[in-house]
């Protein structure tokens, strides 16, 4: 991206980092001012805990979650590719992603880690979450497998008989 650096500043201090767009600087300064105003209040309680959560959330996502699901996806793609079934990737990826997404969002309920407070606060049974998630996952994977089988059958029917 081309950056226009004022000629004067380059001549005077050739090795200094350029400032960049003044409009952008002004905008970011306003943003930081507001973030700092709220941030002081956010950090008023458990300062270290909150800072850890915010920075940790970004790091955990970028350095753990993304690599993990990327590696899993790559393993599936390569495995199917090695078996000569690269075209099947989506039939595994789609249900796995959807099922994983539900698990990620509802992990406290599905894993049973909030069973006790959940039951005593709401008078509802916490037992069904794992079962329902497993059933939804079964439907997703089963549906995907059925769709693949149906497409394979249709492709086989349309193939000329000589290729059998």
């Amino acid at each position, binding site marked *: *991206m081309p*950056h226009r650096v004022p000629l004067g500043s380059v001549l005077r201090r050739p090795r200094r*980092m*350029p*400032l*960049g*767009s003044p409009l*952008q600087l002004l905008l*970011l300064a306003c*943003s*930081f001012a*507001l*973030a700092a*105003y*709220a*941030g002081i*209040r*956010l950090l*008023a*309680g*458990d300062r270290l*805990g*909150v800072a*850890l*959560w*915010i*920075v940790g*959330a*970004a790091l955990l*996502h*970028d350095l753990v979650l*993304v690599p993990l699901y990327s590696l899993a996806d790559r393993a599936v*793609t390569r495995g199917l590719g090695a078996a000569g079934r*690269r075209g099947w*990737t*989506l039939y595994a*990826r*789609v249900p796995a*992603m*959807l099922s994983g*997404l*539900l698990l*990620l*969002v*509802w992990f*406290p*309920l*599905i894993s049973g*880690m*909030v069973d006790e407070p*959940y039951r*005593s*606060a*709401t*008078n*509802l049974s916490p037992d*069904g*979450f794992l079962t*329902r998630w497993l059933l*939804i996952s079964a439907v997703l994977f089963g549906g995907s497998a059925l769709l693949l089988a149906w497409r394979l059958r249709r492709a086989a029917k349309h193939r000329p008989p000589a290729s059998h």
Partner: protein
Amino acid sequence: MRDHPPLPISPGFWRSPLRGPWLTSVLGLVLLIGITVLFVTGLVSYAAYNPGLSPVNDQTPDKGVLGFYLFAWPTGPVWLYRLTQGVHVTLGITLIPVLLAKLWSVVPRLFTLPPARSVAHALERVSLLLLVGGGLFEFTTGVLNVQLDYVFPGSFYPLHFYGAWVFFAAFLAHAALRTPTALRAVRGRLHEQSDLVTPRPAPPTVSRRGALWLVGGGSLLLFLTTVGQSLGGPFRRTALLAPHGTADPGGGPNGFQINKTAAYAGITAADTHPDAWRLVVTGRSGTVRLSRAQLLQLPQHSASLPIACVEGWSTADQWWRGVRLRDLAALVGYDGDPPDVFVESLQRHGAFRRAALRANQVADERSLLALSVNGEELSPDHGHPARIIVPAAPGVLNTKWVARLTFGDL
């Protein structure tokens, strides 16, 4: 792996042919609208608590100018808080796949070298930490709170409220800096080379549109398995994984959703026994003590009102019956000019065991000290012997197990 495996700092490390300005821009524009709605409905929810009325309603008393927009929360339409908070929580959950996809689409930029090309660029990257960290913090605290998983470092209200402002500050700057580029990219008018496009694309397994369908499918699945807990009625069964989905707690007239049971709140049968329980009503003409039987002898009125929780779930309208709050105000010297009221519960702990209602809420003829619901005496879990029910107010302001009402300007 052949010869030298590239590092994440090398553009060749990132091989997905999906990444590029079009995908990032489409996802970004969806979030631009979605997160704006989340922020506004979040601010509205704060206003719905009437935090300016009394310190007991305000979990963020140090808000300063961040409360600039506060207004007296109205009592109608009765489904107002159901709608705004249902949208806030359901939309937030629905946007999670979009947020994750957006972050995935720009993850190579995390590793861009040199770390900064200019002072402005360096500051922008710091701002991006607040954007990503703050955004994930908001979504995470929200998702954990609705599942009663209170593991975050502090009370939910200040964390989610101040966190929202930190996040939104970074979000505004990001939107101002990037929206023009995003609009050009989705219109196909972006002709600059983008660092998001990999120089070493792997063979595609899905098209960009296909990837977008997948993200949309994830959102749809989350939406369909969640929204029923806010719609209530027969739709509750469809909310397969939402905390207040699938089932109601027991049957009968009192078999609708409970936020906190009597046992959870530490209310015992001895506390609410007819011999022990008295409602203490105080106002400018003095104090009146009423047993439940005496309350039943006052004029009884009905109102069909929902319960709507900050956690996003709500119930259909329930048919409440009891004494109007303004009639109770009249008992203690406020005949025709009902003031604010300070409500105290038998509950010994919990943030909202005391709550304040504004004069407009007390004056509404549908605002009741309810004694029965759907034709039956209130159950212990729904606030027996008596509870507050006010149209359009957040659930926690509908105090259960009421012990004392103090009328007067707060």
